């Protein structure tokens, strides 16, 4: 019998608390008598190795079934790239260039913008790899990896506004308040490295995505599964740096005194598991202080690697750095990494209202080489097979312009392209299709729920079984929807 959240087990003294220990044997400030304290108390006997194995909320858990992907990197092209200019060539648009959108194609004109004329893709497409998947000249480097990609040309979503569409791409529904994909994945699988956050989000320096934090929120599942914002320089996470007032040596002294005081406090009390858990969390925090900066310390990388990601030159420096850090995080066992390309509003993102040529040139040139390098780097290190890479925006763009002298395109939730690679994905695949104009998904349409179901499946999770009981209902990422696209899976 399931019950309301927080009391899933009636056998524990305080709901979930007893199960939510972050513990780890080993180093840290163990020398400061911490581990001895925990061992002496029988903490590990009672908690650490219960019949469920570990009880940390982020301890690794078995997937529902065997799978290849262990980690996921989601490259979110914030703002919505245009499909007919990138991965969905539409020769028909050439023929109809300058004509009005056919009246039988119904759509919501987002934001009430000017409606121009059908406009062909601005860059030529060329086949890539042996599979010959056509990819436009916006992505010459990614094109070299065409055989690794499964391009879905028939994605669609429910909403035309950035705010709600981003929320939907991340949480499944265009309404605030639900857990994000990364939260579900870490809830289902935990994370392999307890010294780093299990779910990392790296934003574009130009700003966060519209709607902000709810995009990486854990919604109604415990806060331990929310995304952690990670910066690519300096101290990657908040409050990681030892305060300058004290310095590391003083902090060691502080922790020693803290251990002492906490130990005396324990002695006088019974039923102390939550106290021990908190002591253990300090041990972990201490190790995070050294391990997290190490993850963003690129001095250990070769010059060739730095060059390949384009880290020391523009326009690739920022996204290249983020891609390399994503690889380093995945190498270190982080479960879910999300990188945003584009931040803030309008032309600072892929939101090409003014000019697709201008906007996409700018953003594609920032990400093309870094993404291509990420794919080859993962492959060379033998990580591609265990890392699912996802590329796409919150929606696509219209086949028509915004006016005669305004070669931009408005939002289009009815059809757009995304691609998957690595992690058990069948490379060299094109799946689904939009209509002749690239407007709406018509063949094998893939809703965001289907995409999510497929991503979870690739991560070894059955989207119908990955549930969290909340306010009377077994909630799922895919609600009551979602079909796994088996054609995308090798």
């Amino acid at each position, binding site marked *: 019998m399931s019950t309301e959240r927080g009391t899933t087990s009636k056998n524990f003294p305080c709901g979930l608390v007893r199960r939510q220990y972050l513990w780890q044997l080993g180093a840290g400030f163990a020398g400061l008598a911490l581990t001895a304290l925990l061992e002496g108390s029988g903490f590990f006997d009672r908690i650490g190795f219960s019949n469920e194995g570990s009880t940390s909320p982020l301890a690794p858990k078995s997937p529902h079934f065997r799978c290849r992907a262990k980690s996921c990197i989601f490259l979110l092209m914030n703002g919505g790239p245009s499909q007919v200019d990138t991965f969905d060539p539409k020769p028909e648009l050439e023929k109809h260039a300058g004509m009005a959108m056919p009246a039988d194609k119904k759509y919501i004109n987002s934001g009430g913008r000017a409606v121009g004329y059908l406009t062909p893709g601005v860059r030529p497409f060329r086949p890539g790899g042996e599979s010959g998947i056509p990819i436009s000249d916006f992505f010459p480097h990614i094109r070299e990896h065409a055989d690794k990609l499964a391009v879905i040309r028939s994605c669609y979503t429910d909403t035309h506004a950035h705010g709600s569409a981003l929320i939907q791409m991340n949480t499944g529904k265009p309404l605030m308040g639900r857990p994000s994909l990364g939260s579900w994945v870490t809830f289902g699988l935990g994370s392999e490295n307890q010294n780093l956050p299990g779910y990392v989000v790296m934003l574009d320096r130009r700003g966060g995505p519209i709607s902000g934090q709810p995009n990486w929120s854990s919604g109604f599942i415990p*806060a331990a599964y929310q995304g952690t914002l990670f910066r690519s320089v300096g101290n990657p996470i908040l409050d990681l740096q030892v305060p300058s007032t004290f310095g590391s040596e003083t902090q060691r002294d502080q922790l020693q005194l803290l251990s002492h005081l906490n130990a005396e406090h324990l002695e006088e*009390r019974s039923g102390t598991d939550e106290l021990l858990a908190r002591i253990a969390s300090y041990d972990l925090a201490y190790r995070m202080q050294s391990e997290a900066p190490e993850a963003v310390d690129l001095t250990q990388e070769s010059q060739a690697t730095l060059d390949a990601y384009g880290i020391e030159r523009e326009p690739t420096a920022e996204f290249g750095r983020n891609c390399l850090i994503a690889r380093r995080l995945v190498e270190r066992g982080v479960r879910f990494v999300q990188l945003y390309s584009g931040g803030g509003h309008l032309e600072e993102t892929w939101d090409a209202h003014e000019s697709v040529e201008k906007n996409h040139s700018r953003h594609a040139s920032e990400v093309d080489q870094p993404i291509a390098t990420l794919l080859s780097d993962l492959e060379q290190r033998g990580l591609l097979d265990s890392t699912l890479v996802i590329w796409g925006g919150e929606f696509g763009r219209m086949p028509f312009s915004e006016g005669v002298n305004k070669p931009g395109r408005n939002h289009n939730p009815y059809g757009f392209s995304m691609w998957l690679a690595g992690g058990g994905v069948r490379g060299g695949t094109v799946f689904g299709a939009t209509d002749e104009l690239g407007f709406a998904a018509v063949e094998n349409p893939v809703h965001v729920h289907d995409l999510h179901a497929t991503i979870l499946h690739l991560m070894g999770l059955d989207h119908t079984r990955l549930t969290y009981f909340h306010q*009377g209902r077994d909630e799922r990422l895919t609600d009551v929807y979602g079909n796994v696209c088996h054609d995308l899976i090798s």
Partner: protein
Amino acid sequence: MLNAPPFPTENLMLRCRSIIWRSGALAAALGLPIASADDTPRDPWSRVAAILSERCLECHASLNPSGGLDLSNRDGWERGGDSGPAIIPSDIDSSFLLQRVEAGEMPPEKNGQLQKLPDDEIDRLREWIRSGAYWPLHQQLDPFEISSSKRGGRDWWSLQPIDPPAVPSKATAIDDLLQSSRASFGLSLAPPAPPRQIIRRLYFDLIGLPPSPEQVELFVQNPTLEEYEKIVDQLLDSRHFAERWARYWFDVARFAETNGYERDAVKSHAWKYRDWVIDAIHDDLPFDQFVTHQLAGDEIVERNEHSVIATGFLRLGTWDDEPNDPAEYVYERLEDLVHVTSTAFLGMTVKCARCHDHKFDPISQMDYYRMAACFWPGPVEARQREWNGGPTSEELGFDVLGWTDIQREPPPLFVLIKGDVHRPSAVAKPGSLSFLPETYRDFRDADSEAKTTLRRLQLAEWIVDSKNPLTPRVIVNRLWQHHFGEGLIRTSDNFGFNGDRPIHQSLLDWLAAELHRQQWRLKPIHKLMVMSETYRQSSTHPNFDDQYAGDPSNRYLWHAQRRRLDAESLRDAILSTSGLLDLRVGGPSFRPAISEEALEGLSMKGNAYQPSSEEECRRRSIYIFAKRALTVPFMATFDVCDSAIPTGRREVTTVAPQALSMLNNSWVVQQSQQFAKRVCDGALQDEGRVRLAWRLALNRDPRKSEMQAALNHVQSIQDSDRSEPSELRAWASLCHVLLNTNEFIYVD
């Protein structure tokens, strides 16, 4: 070893099962004479009725039955659905229902698991059809009538009248009622909490702040029950009590001061609602009025600016000013209003019946729409963006955040098949919900001179009707949860089938009845709870291990629950300890300073976030501006809940980022320095300073060993530091450690 208490859920399941299989019980529930022998035709029928009710009616009944087949009455199965007649009396070979059931196709598989009926049930169906499929004239099966192993019916415990036990004394009722169940499982109460423990607990519990060293010493010198009671009365009278307890209500009311989504626009005057709640709690506004003002403060006779501010409750939800399909978004807004109302006041998940009848509770889709119809005349449809989804101040009559009807004669609200805007079916009348038959009523049309439809007022009247058992049970349980750490019903937002089962129902009912006797005033209930021995016991039990084996989750309250300070209390306690806390009450919210790194999550950089002045930032956490796109990181780390949906019970997690923020966060470090100044100013000698630091942070004197360790710490930092004024730095380090101790953050 003690006898483990029975697992309540299983018990109840057994009870339900036995009810459903005792055919007589079903017959009785259907208002039929109970069959006395097996050979009447009624008896095989009532057993079949039980099978149909439990196995089929979830889909094959009510407004829009699956496949068009309604199995709840004879007409339904004779006529059949899309595949023709389901049952042909006396013809087992042609009865389609039997074929599907025998093939295991019905009930349909669930999560990949076949749901084939047990053989004996199939045999019963077959026999019944073979013998002519007897069905009493005009008999209608009602799947909501009685509970089964799969769902709750109208006989569900929480829907039954409040049935308080007789108690010898009001003062000891809580303890007496708990003691009898404790004793039957061999559990005993922990000893009384020592004076320092109980006084610290009481302060944090009632006002969310630690006692001052003077307040502690005063009580420790005279730790009598009379003195304790005096303090209880003082604290209950304090405005800080209202600030503390308003916070719990804000979680339930999904309180925030912005809309969320792209623009995350500010809901102007939301802080007035916040102050209204604080005032209402401080004045002990009777809970029935507390409900009525929030749902219908614009419709009551004594309507004034304050009562209209209370309707801000209906405006607090997220609001998308640019929804994909405005026509559909209307129904999202109705769901928000139905959900917050039914969760906050009734503890029922009515929203689950938006697209179909509730799968677990006796709530029909029509019920959902009856409640939704109460909000339908309000501004649920898209209007001008700058009105933020609410009425204009002209419509409202005041320049506040509030709600009122904007249509006196709203169009009919249609029940939508599967929630699909394009599939309207029956018209829903505003009215009460059917799970309380005795109070079931359609709401009347308002008189012609009324300005509004009075639907919400009638909804509020039904919610606080003396015959509605949910409302008092739900609120006294919320109070219990916050005083004791867990509710008597641990799922405080869900009193339905999927909620926790009552193992202390007599106590719950006694408290609910007491609330009625107190004319809905909550402070007397608070007082009864914190005066009880159960509340005043220690968190440590001399026979902990034995008792733990018997009742590991402390369901019988044999020790006090040690609890971590929630985010607000933690921040307030740090400020209080450092001496900087500003206790000004009310007024517009302040924006705490947030590090630049943390602001990166905002899409509008730079101009978007302006922190308030340093003085403002010393105010209590209840006054933090609640921005949906950005929760203050320190608060988020310590489990502040998401404000998109109502939350009656926050999760408590223990994770490394909490330790990082207590160790490294610059605000915590500043507070430690301030705390150190206070300590250094307050005493000249080192030992005196250590003592003062302990009294301020932990409400006690240090033990010898602690004194020594503290002095060593200060000394060693001073020794290692040849630079500038190292004294304060050393004391700040010690103070910082104290703020990090388990003793500071966990209240026994």
